[in-house]
């Protein structure tokens, strides 16, 4: 089992009134990028912090690099890198001072100035952390996670709140880390991030695992490659929609439906006919190829972003 880098079995974490993690089994293999995808409050952060040895679980077993947090914390800390959700670094320090500080904690690691260059932060090396943009701060947080030259990188919501360009820059850093056989475990509620970065994805909701696989496998599980999104007045009844050929399910959204179908060319004309037959008027209509977002909607009846 040399290839198993991070694993947990029967992980449970209960707070006073919430079951944040409720019996989770996960395993992350060496060299892969593993994503925990779920809406806010799904238990992603609690899960990753338990795996990072920062939060104790109520029950369950956690192994990282074949070791346990209770026995080998010091060695584990040398070999993993962590970026917390919304990492706050000391705003009064400069970027380079921050890097040097973090570097001093590790027995071996990367050169602070080289790393800043790798992360396009060398121009900001003498700037105060408090003056950095959101994207620069986040890259610095990842730099702090990389400075000890870790085997495993834990990233909690690394791109939340970032603009598209900053997000791309961060994805690039993760890709470079993986190029040298690094293992990544990240959480996100952006399905496009999970699709782009991750080899395997675990979709979690309410502390449960609801789907696990490669992005392609997961989307294939929808059995419907296409999604039609439409509104109508009055709203079409659910059983009328089932008449569409190649129908694989529908979820209510606002004044209309998300309809999962095989072929758009077949389904769209039929749908228009159904709406007219019911004496309704079609509002907005759009289509897209099925994504992880649609999988989440079909599994939970809710949406990833705004829950």
């Amino acid at each position, binding site marked *: 089992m040399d290839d198993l880098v991070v694993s947990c079995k029967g992980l449970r974490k209960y707070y006073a009134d919430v079951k944040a993690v409720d019996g989770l089994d996960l395993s992350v293999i060496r060299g892969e990028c593993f994503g925990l995808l779920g809406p806010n409050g799904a238990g992603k952060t609690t899960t990753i912090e338990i795996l990072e040895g920062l939060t104790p679980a109520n029950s369950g077993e956690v192994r990282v690099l074949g070791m346990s947090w209770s026995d080998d914390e010091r060695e584990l800390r040398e070999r993993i890198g962590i970026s917390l959700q919304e990492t706050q670094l000391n705003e009064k320090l400069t970027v380079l001072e921050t890097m040097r500080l973090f570097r001093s904690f590790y027995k071996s690691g990367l050169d*602070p100035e*080289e790393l800043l260059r790798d992360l396009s932060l060398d121009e900001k090396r003498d700037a105060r952390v408090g003056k950095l943009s959101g994207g620069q701060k986040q890259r610095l947080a990842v730099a702090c996670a990389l400075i000890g030259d870790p085997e495993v990188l834990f990233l909690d919501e690394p791109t939340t709140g970032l603009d598209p360009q900053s997000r791309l820059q961060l994805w690039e850093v993760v890709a470079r880390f993986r190029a040298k056989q690094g293992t990544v475990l990240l959480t996100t509620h952006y399905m496009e991030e999970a699709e782009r970065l991750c080899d395997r994805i675990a979709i979690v909701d309410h502390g449960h695992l609801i789907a696990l696989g490669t992005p392609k496998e997961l989307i294939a599980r929808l059995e419907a490659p296409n999604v039609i999104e439409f509104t109508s007045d009055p709203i079409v009844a659910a059983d009328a929609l089932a008449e569409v050929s190649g129908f694989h399910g529908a979820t209510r959204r606002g004044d209309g439906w998300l309809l999962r179908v095989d072929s758009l060319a077949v389904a769209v004309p039929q749908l228009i006919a159904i709406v007219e037959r019911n004496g309704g008027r079609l509002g907005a209509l759009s289509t897209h190829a099925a994504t992880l977002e649609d999988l989440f909607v079909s599994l939970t009846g809710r949406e990833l972003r705004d829950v």
Partner: protein
Amino acid sequence: MFKKTGGAPVRHPLIELTSVRTKEFLRETEALFWVFGFPLLLALALGFAFRSKPPDRIPVGVVDGPAARQRLQALAQSPALLPRLFSAQEGREALRRGKISLLIEGDAAPVYGYDPTRPDARTARVEADDALQTAAGRRNVFASQDLKVQEQGSRYIDFLVPGLLGMNLMGTGMWGMGFTIVNARMKKLLKRLVATPMRKSHYLIAQFLSRLIFLVLEVTILVAFGWIVFHVRVNGSIALLAFLCLLGGFTFSGVGLLVASRARTLEAVSGMMNLVMMPMWLCSGVFFSYERFPDSAKPLIRALPLTALNDALRGVMNDAAATTAILPQIAILLAWGLITFVAALKIFRWQ
């Protein structure tokens, strides 16, 4: 990409942590004022308020009448009194309002009106009677002499400067530790640090080391200020004074660490800091001697760290005390420092 070598050598985490904490503090302008500016302003204000000067004259009133002019002249001879002429009604009004401490009426023999619960009124009564009797021709049985005690080391400012020094060591020691730590805890800086291989003891020791750097500065400034502006000299050993300041800094860093060891918000830690410091401000003899408290309370007051520090500082600065004379105080400070540090480490909340 991701190179391991080049650049500056990696320094020990203790050095990095101490240097970072020191830089952080220097970049916090407000904190600089509270540590260095505030105690100086306080010493200046109090020093001027209590500077050595002739005692104020006590205002007394003389009711207009046949004997009034003579009485005014006689009273003006006394260095303790400031006489003024009033009509009977005005005089009583002034006495009632406390504008004067004594009102002298009566025709042949004076009648003194005053509030006997006021010490200055009683002094005025004695001084006025003495002046009037002497003017009327009383002969003193013997000529007494005054020996005025105002030598260096026994003035109020000599008492005050060591007290301020002690108070400052307490304030900066506790705030310096408490505020930074709770702030770092709130911003999840501590959580980020414990996610690295950093040794927790290194972090706490660095906080203390950085405090020491500033402590040397702030003590030097305050002592030099007292010496130059108010001629408050260090009569005892400078080395012993330096040792006491370091010990005091250590003790109150420990207390501050304990107070901050679990607090989650700045409000909570501020409240607790004040709760801990207030009794010592009042009881430990910063502004006035704790000898005025009842005897039963004194053992308790002497066991407070600030009392021990103030007593030891006054011993060295004013009375040139030797180490042996302040051993009990040193023991008390050491005990407080050690116990609070160990307790704080045990219960410290890192996230």
